[in-house]
């Protein structure tokens, strides 16, 4: 059957299974990805079916994981590596930024780096320090990398397929608190391009732009706003680098108002980039300044405070009201 209801976790697992099955050059690498199947079980059962040579448990060394993946890619492999949690990507940040991102350009295009770096990211699961961060802007700022994040099972399935097939390095942020959210996945439909934004709810009064874990919050906010007679459009960005500005622009030129929502700190975040560029593109269509809702410029708070830090329904609706009040 082509259509099946599954969680994001299951969709990623199925997608990785398909990738391993389709292309013998695809490898899975990371800490605990083999026997354990990953701490979130995204790679569950893959080592059993594809062997230790394809699904590789690695030493606990993130720079080593990404650095050796680069070498394997140079040898013709297509490694998909897992960084166990967002806050632990930084030991690998040097390899990602100085090597993975730049080697294709350094070689004047003569070599390709088809490496996918999977990072479960974001808060909302009550974790300890370093297990809940949203560092996507740090990667989106680096030329040579592409940065994406699915918000639902169908996108998780297809975007992973597209990421594995891409000849560019892809930083694949997985919204860990949505891992168990279920949706229908059509494993036979032909998906749109990896970097296209998708309108997930039509509206006429205001546009909400979000990605990953915040799409669900924005859809709930749009539904709540509807009850108050406000028509809110929701765009799922899906890709933070590049950004589908055309899609945002056309939505904003319809609604006249834009609010960008993400978990990451607002300061220097994706919202800043979107606000600036949409202001340039659609200045005369805007009825209100572009507003941003996101995390604060503070170290990620302890779990008992993260509800204050993370944008929730009320904070999004407050921004919607503020925008509409102009």
């Amino acid at each position, binding site marked *: 059957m082509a259509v099946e209801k599954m969680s994001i976790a299951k969709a990623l697992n199925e997608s990785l299974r398909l990738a391993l099955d389709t292309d013998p050059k695809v490898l899975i690498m990371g800490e605990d990805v083999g026997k354990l199947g990953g701490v979130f079980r995204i790679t569950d059962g893959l080592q059993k079916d594809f062997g230790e040579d394809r699904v590789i448990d*690695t*030493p606990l060394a993130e720079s080593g994981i990404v*650095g050796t993946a680069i070498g394997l890619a140079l040898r013709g492999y297509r490694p998909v590596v897992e960084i166990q949690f967002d806050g632990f990507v930084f030991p690998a940040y*040097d390899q990602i930024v100085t090597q993975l991102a730049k080697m294709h350009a*350094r070689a*004047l295009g*003569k*070599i390709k780096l088809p490496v996918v770096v999977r990072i479960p990211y974001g808060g909302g699961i009550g974790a300890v320090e370093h297990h809940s961060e949203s560092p996507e802007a740090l990667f989106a700022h680096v030329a040579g990398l592409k940065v994406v994040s699915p918000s639902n099972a169908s996108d998780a399935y297809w975007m992973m397929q597209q990421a594995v097939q891409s000849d560019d390095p892809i930083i694949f942020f997985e919204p860990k608190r949505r891992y168990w959210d279920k949706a229908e996945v059509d494993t036979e439909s032909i998906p749109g391009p990896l970097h296209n934004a998708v309108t997930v709810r039509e509206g006429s009064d205001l546009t909400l732009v979000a990605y990953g874990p915040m799409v669900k919050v924005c859809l709930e906010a749009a539904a709540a706003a509807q009850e108050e007679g406000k028509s809110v459009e929701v765009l799922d960005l899906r890709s933070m680098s*590049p950004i589908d500005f055309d899609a945002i622009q056309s939505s904003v030129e319809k609604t006249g108002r834009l609010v960008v929502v993400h978990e990451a700190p607002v300061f220097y975040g994706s919202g800043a980039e979107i606000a600036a560029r949409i202001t340039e593109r659609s200045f005369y269509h805007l009825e209100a300044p572009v507003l941003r809702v996101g995390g604060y410029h503070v170290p990620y708070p302890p779990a008992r405070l993260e509800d204050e830090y993370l944008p929730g329904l009320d904070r999004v609706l407050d921004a919607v009201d503020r925008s509409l009040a102009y």
Partner: protein
Amino acid sequence: MTVESTAAARKPRRASKRTSAAKKPQSSEPQLVQLLTPEGERVEHPDYSIDLSADELRGLYRDMVLTRRFDAEATALQRQGELGLWASLLGQEAAQIGSGRALRDDDYVFPTYREHGVAWCRGVDPTNLLGMFRGVNHGGWDPTANNFHLYTIVIGSQTLHATGYAMGVAKDGADSAVIAYFGDGASSQGDVAESFTFSAVYNAPVVFFCQNNQWAISEPTERQTRVPLYQRAQGFGFPGVRVDGNDVLACLAVTRSALERARRGEGPTLVEAFTYRMGAHTTSDDPTKYRADDERAAWEAKDPILRLRTYLEKEKLADEAFFTELETESETLGKRVREVVRAMPDPEPLSLFEHGYADGNSLVDEERAQFAAYQASFADSAEEGK
């Protein structure tokens, strides 16, 4: 003065006291594998024998002379403002040519930014090495054409790439090997330690070739380690060997042996080529600020080129005509390098936007279009002015 005693002389006083109290002189004064003494005498080593024809010996000499000539030309070009920077290999010719000539065509090399001699052995046109130092590119050669990866500037990063590549070689069931070059300074980097870990646990066919040239810019080896570098390998579970890095025959023999071990599926080896960087780290620093005057003089007595020449002459393996011809060839090379570099054009402005991404990128497309329009606006106004 021997290489060992030079190392011991620079050891911190406290360390040498403790070493002598523990009576473990072998750890502070390790044996170097040597097949050709600084005086040009052939000596034998029980584990590393080598038997080269006169032709092969002359070939190694030629490689070293031409590499040194190329290096000298590049240094001069930097002084003349033709290059923004140069990292000279002066003094390290034997380490590079010896190891480089141990490689098979299907082996893969991951260099740092000073491996001009290895590049020479791989057949990379030396003028291609100068693009990045002139500032026209970040690596002007196709790495896959000669199995010689681009120069890596971040210290030690490439050891992980080499390890991953070697893991791929093993997966492919190929019997080629991989070699990663790095320096004594890089041995302090986490990536080098991680590459040792990964290569050991996956039994990757990789040779780590550390050119210990005694200085990491102004930091001496004592600032990197308290044990001889080759001994690091033991803790990771693979062999390490220290070779006289100014002895091209020993470098060739030891590297060949390590590569063969990798090919046999026996995993990594660390080779520490004990050598000396006679010049500056790069043309940007001034070694007179951090090195004693007599240090270079002591190492000049161990010059890798001189000792092979002494041997060739003494054993009558090369005649005067050979040396004269090589002199002419060196001058021709220098002239060609000079001409090519001076004629090296700046890249086209729009090339700024090429090669960032393999699959394209809408943001780059947008910025390219804006830049092109901006550039064209000057052309338009020039037209209007006519």
